[in-house]
Structures are given as C-alpha cells and as structure tokens.
C-alpha cells in the first residue's frame, strides 16, 4: 500500500511537472510573441509589405524579402520533398540489409547532424562557384534542400516504420506489388508522420539565415525575383540585416518583419497541422 501510494504520488508529481514543463514552453513563447508584437505590430501596414528596402527605416519595406522567402520555400519544396520522401521510402521499404543500405543509413543520420553553416560552405562552393549560380535563388534553394533532406528522410522512415507489418502482409497477399503496397497502404498510413517531418523541415528552411549568408545572399535587392536565377533576399536575412543597423528604428522594422515571418510559418504549420490531424484521425490501430 505504501509503495502504491508512493507510485501514485510520483504519478501526480509527474503530472504537475508535465504541466509545468509544457507551460514553460508556452510562457516563453508568449513572452516572445507579446514582446515582438508590442514592438513591431504598429509598423506593419500595406506600405511595409509592398515597399522595397531602404536606408530609411520608416520607408523600408519587405516586399523583396517575403517574395524571396516564398520563392525559396517553393523551390526548396519542389527539390527536397520528392527526393527526401523517395529516399526514405527506398531505405525503409526497398533496401535489403546490405552493406550499402547500412552505409546509406549511417550516412543520412550523419547528414542530419551536419550543421547548417557547413551546408552554406558547400552551397557556396558547389552551387555558387562551380555551377556558377552565385547568390541566386536556385543556389539558395539547392543549399536549403540539402540541409532539410536528411530531416525529411529520417522522419519519413520513422513514420513508415510505424505502419504495422500486418498491413503490408495484407496488401502483398492480395497480389499488390511492392510499389502498389507502398503507394496505397504505407504512404497513406504514414502520411501524418511524414507531414510532421515536412513541417519541421520547412519551418527550419524558412527561418534559416546562416547558410544563406555564407552563399552570399545577404544583400540589398531592390527588385522582386522573377526567375530562379535572380538574386534574392529572404526575411531572416532582412531581419538580420536590420538588427545590425545602428538606428533603433530598424529594430522596430525587424520586429515587424519577424511578425510577418512568423505569420508565414504559422500559415504553413496551420495547413500541415490540419492535414496531419485529418490523416491521424483516419489512421488508427
């Protein structure tokens, strides 16, 4: 009885601790958001969103930055998602436990651990210099794609792993080929998990500044990019640029830009969370 009381006490204590931890996270988040909102919200108006960058804080806008961010997101998605999901599927569903598969697996775990700044160095050399893409959108998107590829692969694999063997058995037994089983059963059933990976990777890509700085994207670009080979800037870089200005007004601009950046990620997350919960409710065993 005493033991059980102890256990129950521990249980309760953990519950309290759990609530506490969850709220630490939420409170810090609230502090951030409130702080940024107070500082930046008054700066946001139509002009701010549609203006080009400027040396004068009051005239500077984020048109090129958010346009660049959307471009980068689009290009990165197009490059990284098919590649990442395909690689995840291959490793989990297709590859036999050969040396190559094992090597691939370790390799990807390693890539996931490679710091973003090193991807910056890679992007600068390979895309920027050797392929001659310089500080263009394509060069930035390729760099970020490499950066998020391992995240997508790893989470895709984890999601696929969670699909019970019995579901595959059932499908194979009905004469489905490997790909049919993957496409019709495994991918739909793991889609919730894959989406989580995509959310995390995209939100990482959207907030990433360091590798883009290294490939040379920290720039004054007074026009909206119209093709993947154009130069660009993105919101985090614009924010970084503004926070290092001496004039305090630029910090207000930075806060305002952060609000917009968060808004973009919220919308992204919102879509993905919605899709994910839809899938998760559908798939339960």
């Amino acid at each position, binding site marked *: 009885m005493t033991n059980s009381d102890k256990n129950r006490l521990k249980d309760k204590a953990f519950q309290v601790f759990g609530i506490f931890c969850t709220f630490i996270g939420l409170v810090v988040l609230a502090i951030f958001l409130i702080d940024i909102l107070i500082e930046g919200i008054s700066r946001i108006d139509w002009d701010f969103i549609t203006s080009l960058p400027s040396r004068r804080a009051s005239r500077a806008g984020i048109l090129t930055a958010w346009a660049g961010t959307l471009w980068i997101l689009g290009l990165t998605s197009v490059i990284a998602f098919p590649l990442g999901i395909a690689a995840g599927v291959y490793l989990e569903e297709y590859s036999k436990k050969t040396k190559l598969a094992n090597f691939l697996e370790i390799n990807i775990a390693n890539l996931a651990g490679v710091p973003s700044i090193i991807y910056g160095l890679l992007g600068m050399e390979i895309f920027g210099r050797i392929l001659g893409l310089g500080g263009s959108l394509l060069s930035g998107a390729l760099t970020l794609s490499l950066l998020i590829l391992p995240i997508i692969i790893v989470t895709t694999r984890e999601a696929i792993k969670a699909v019970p063997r019995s579901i595959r058995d059932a499908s194979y037994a009905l004469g489905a080929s490997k790909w049919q089983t993957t496409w019709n059963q495994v991918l739909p059933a793991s889609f919730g998990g894959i989406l989580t990976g995509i959310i995390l990777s995209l939100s990482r890509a959207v907030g990433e500044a360091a590798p883009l700085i290294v490939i040379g994207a920290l720039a*004054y670009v*007074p026009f909206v990019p119209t093709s993947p080979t154009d130069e660009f800037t993105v919101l985090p870089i614009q924010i970084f640029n503004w926070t290092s200005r001496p004039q305090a007004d630029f910090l207000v601009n930075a806060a305002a830009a952060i609000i917009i950046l968060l808004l973009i990620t919220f919308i992204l997350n919102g879509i993905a969370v919605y899709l994910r919960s839809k899938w998760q409710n559908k798939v339960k065993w």
Partner: protein
Amino acid sequence: GGDKNTKEGEAGTSEVAGDLSGSIQIDGSSTVYPITEAVAEEFRAEAPDVKVTVGVSGSGGGFKKFSRGEIDIADASRSIKASEDSLAKANNISHVELSVAYDGLTVVVHPENNWVKDITVAELKKIWEPAAQGKIKKWNQIRPEWPDKEIHLYGAGVESGTYDYFTEAIVGKSHSSRGDYTASEDDNVLVQGVSTDPLALGFFGYAYYEENQTKLKAVPVDDQNDANGKGAILPSMESVKDGSYAPLSRPLFIYVNSKAAARPEVVNFVNFYLDNAAALSQEVGYIPMPAEKYKEEKAKFQQFVSGAAKK
C-alpha cells in the same frame, strides 16, 4: 550642404541616367554597405531600369568576387591586399580605389563611468597590445588615479576591418592585440555589452555611438600630437572631417572594375555615388569627406574610365 549636394547630383546625371538599363553587382564590406545601399536606393529614382544589388560578404569576400570578375564594384573598409590584387591581375582586371566617406572609431565607456575623462593613444596601446593579455586587468594599472576595479574590454571581431584598423592605429601593427576581450562583428551587440557593464571599455563605429548616445559615453582620445588638434578630442562630424580626430578615423572605399567601367550604367552609378556620398553617408551615420576630396575622387575616376576605354 547635404541637400544641395543631392540636388546637384540629380541635376547632373538625370538626363542620361533615365535611359540606362542593365544591372550592377556590388558586394563587400558590411561597413560600407549602408552607404552603397543608400546610393543604390536613390539611383533607382534616377535610372529605374538599372538593377543594382548590394551584397554583404565582408571586404575579403567582396575582393574575392571582385578579383574573379564576378562583381562590378567592391565595397571595402580596407585597401586591397597584394594577394587579392594579383588574383585580379591574373584575371585581367584592373581597378580604381575611390574613397567615399570616413568612419570614426569611437572609444566608449558606460555612462556611469565617472573616472575616465580622456585617454591617450599610449594608454590605449597599453590596454590593447598583446603583452597586456592577462596582465592589464584593472583600471588603476592604466592610470593610478583610476579605481582598483576590473576593466572589461569590448571590441570588433578579429576578422573585421574595424579591428584591423584599430590595431594598426593603436598598437602599430595590424592584427596585433590581446585576445581576452569580448568580440562581436555586430556592433549592436557591443553597444548592448558596454551599456550594461559599468566597468566596460570598448570601441566601435561612430554611427553606433551616435545612435546610442544616451546609453554610452564617448571618450576623447589624445594622440599627443598637437599637429592634429591639441589635447583629447571627441569624435564628431567636424573632428573627423578636419582630421583632428586622429588616429582613429579611417576612410571607406569602393573599388571599380575596369571592365565594368566600360559600361555606361556603371559609370553613371559611380558618378552618382561620388556626387551624393557626402549627404547619404552622413544620413546613415558616417562622416562625409570634404567637398574637394570628392572632386579629386571624381577626377580620378574620370581618368580611370578613359584609361579603361583606351584598352
């Protein structure tokens, strides 16, 4: 006279500039960036079809691209190094160095610091030279009448042109200083550091001091050379411009590529730059050069352009 200057500049170039098109790639120092950005922004009104992009890769990164012919103009807070120059030559690129403004490195302390009224270059050297590392730790080691308290040092990151220049001017040898100080390439971070640390002494660009005057106290610097101002001198527009704030004022440059100088939009842009640099540099927190200096630079550029055209 900034406004007047701008107007003159516009009047001088607008007829030609309006028809220009093409693009101009600029990259380089983060210190020069705000000036170039301001010029590019104004130039847009003159020549809306010219796409000017201004990158921030640092002077080193800028020169690298410049030497390989990837960009038309390099922003620089230091002169080109021999190695960089020889790479440019290897790529058949010659260049012209144009000064566009001054930056005054400002020595600052916490506003509550009531003991430091001024400081000499020799004292600064004593604080910052490599030999000071681990030894000069208290204020009273510099001047006996200063308190027996720790001194906390803040300064530009070692990879920055600012550091380069400061060590050159104070210690006498570039890249030669103690290492146990708090460094950041982001001057706002240094502002934050000094303004919250009563025992701090730091240095950074004049613009950052100017914008944070209430949080910081600038220290007059005495170079003990009466030729350029007697006694300790505070950094200001005037003292930097007239050269009396020595040795901590430094020129900022742009470098123009000879091949780019053959393109009318680049020529127009550079002329526009020199015409407006005085007003615009002041606006973004730097110190303009005297008017005649800009004339000299313009002439130098003219000569370079005609030289390049001959080739």
